[in-house]
């Protein structure tokens, strides 16, 4: 087992219902849930691999392929939809040449669509890593991408 996984498992000894926090921690550290990680989590939690995968695949947060260096999320919540969020998403898709769920070939950006960051008053909203960009316009997209 990779050293990183062993470290993470240590802090979860004997906690009831800890599969999801465990998956989150592993994804946070490794960027995604590899086959190996899922199998180790299954062994550790004493449930089958398919059960672990069943849980992980239910939730939108979990990824099963490596991620790009930056995560780029475009909001398509109601407020953003009403104020043109889909135009922002399309522009990003065109600029990067990827669809939501995809990663650019240089592994620089992973693109996702999200339903609401809770900054609806500043819609439309786009988030790169931890930076929230409010009051977006299609013309701002290129400038912002260029900063990363």
């Amino acid at each position, binding site marked *: 087992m990779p050293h990183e996984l062993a470290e993470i498992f240590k802090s979860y000894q004997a906690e*009831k*219902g*800890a*599969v*999801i*926090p465990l*998956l*989150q921690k592993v994804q946070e550290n490794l960027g995604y849930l590899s086959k190996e990680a899922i199998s180790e989590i299954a062994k550790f939690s004493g449930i089958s691999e398919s059960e672990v995968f*069943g*849980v992980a695949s*239910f*939730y*939108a*947060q*979990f990824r099963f392929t490596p991620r790009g260096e930056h995560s780029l999320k475009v909001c*398509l*919540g*109601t*407020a*953003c*939809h*009403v*104020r043109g969020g889909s*135009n922002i998403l*399309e*522009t990003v898709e*065109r600029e990067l040449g990827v669809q939501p769920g995809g990663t650019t070939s240089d592994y620089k950006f992973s693109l996702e669509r*999200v*339903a*609401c*960051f*809770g*900054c*609806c*008053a*500043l*819609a439309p*909203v786009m988030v790169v890593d*931890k930076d*929230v*960009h*409010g*009051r977006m316009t*299609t013309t701002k997209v290129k400038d912002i991408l260029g900063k990363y």
Partner: protein
Amino acid sequence: MTFEEIEKKALLEWRVLEQVEKPCLLVGAATCGRSAGALAVIDAINKTLKEFNIEAKVIQVGCIGLCYAEPMVDIIKPGRPRISYGNLTPEIVSQLIEDYLIKDNTRPDLALGYIGDGRVDGIPALFDLPVLKPQVRIVLRNCGFIDPENINHYVANDGYKGLVRALKMEPEAIIQEIKKSGLRGRGGAGFPTWLKWDICRRELSPEKYIICNADEGDPGAFMNRSLLEGDPHSVLEGMVIGAYAIGANQGYIYCRAEYPLALERLNIALPQMEEYGFVGDNILGSGFNFHIKIKEGAGAFVCGEETALMASIEGKRGMPRARPPFPAQSGLWGKPTNINNVETWANVAVILEKGGEWYAQYGTETSKGSKTFALVGKVERTGLIEVPLGIKLGEVIYEVAGGILKGKQFKAVQTGGPSGGCLPVNLLDLPVDYESLTDAGSIMGSGGMIVMDEDTCVVDIAEYFLSFTQAESCGKCVPCRVGTKQMLNILERISKGEGKLEDIEQLERLANTVKSGSLCGLGQTAPNPVLTTIRYFRSEYEEHINKKRCPALVCRKLISFYILPDKCAGCMICLRNCPVEAIRGGKRLIHVIDQDKCIECGTCLDVCPKRFSAVVKVSGVKIEVPREPILVKGS
């Protein structure tokens, strides 16, 4: 430390802010403020203070709700009331510091209002502004005023007094106090809070659980986020009181992962509570033990539903199950469990401090107290508001929110998110209470309020919500899984201009099946956006179907863009900006859009200079334009 000692210490720290010689700057740095640039403003403040050698305190506070004016900074200068400034940039804030703190010019042009006693020439009282005047601040009492990372600020503003009082009462008496207040659940369904507590309290079990539902899945709503970021202790205090009344020793907060700052603030607040003995073993010497754990959601809307949420805490797929048994009897790990929304918990703390009767003076006969709403969409003043229940929809939209953006026409207001409905102009007199909204075909929901103007298409909105619920359906029951998909197919057809007249009846039939046959609230309410838009805007559906026309000019398959030959000046701006190279032209040539290549993104319309205004968007009509670019007339 006894509570009196804690209080004394807290008050001392709080008063320093307002009375000491040093000025204090409070920056609204919740997620909304940050996305408007609050962190850059803080950098500029620190730099300027250093540059002029000014000693001042800089504190990050939560959001007061005036998101339209973000980034905001409040300045307290000794001897003056606190003044709120809005729409700041790093440059403006540097100038402001120089003007106000050095030259003593209060800059009324940048000020929104002053807060507290006293007067400032040329600046209105903040709470007299039209946006704040109709509001009451119960849940949001501290948001934007205190440092949410400092428990002393909360305590100094009457925090944890409700808990101290509750611990001296019998559990039954606490529940009676909640009953007197008339508080109903703020998470959507509006179930009387006292009744839920009472059922759970009566269950005989050595193990019981309390849950705070902070999943806030409604896309377009952020009341719970703001509250957790701006005043986490108010929610936590409510939970401890509830746990004591019900007899639970373990609590969970289930917060969605999309709210990292809220999670961070909770993680800061909990150890502070422990240190003061407000949570943990033998709380404030009462012998009562209660522990709280924070659980991070993993991105599934259905996990806001109580039974799905509990499955998720147990580490399973977040699928709802049939009720009964209700969580109060058999919830988390099969034990009696009481779950309430973030806002419900925050109300509990004040009710215990000030009394149920005090709370019940606000609101209507059946809907007591106040409610927070995330007021967004096409209004002048977007933000977070708290109004007494029973206020008229129109008052919220026209007084508080200042009317429709750019003077356009109001079309509909959407309440209750994916479970709610769209209400038209003739319902602007409707009082905002649980029953009135339900009768009108919508619901109160958790507090999303999205205002739409004439440029919003109701078919598009119905399609939007249904595509959301369809994607978020967990798939466990057939009516929801298959029914929403079929409804979505029909809506997609209509918005493409391929609808048939019988589609509307078919939608209504399907909607009723999905409503009555689904297992949980997701499916039971998913058809509401479709049903209300048909009920109030049927003619728009018919226009899409019969005339292949989208009157609001939104549905992409039904609109076209043209460049008017007599207006185009051949400046080439649209040509350069078109993302798909669908525009042909050249210098001093009349530009032409290739309709086959055009993806209807509207970029040309956005970039065409105002003085030409040569691009038009139409639906259901054709405009004569040259086939090839030709010379602009007169050149």
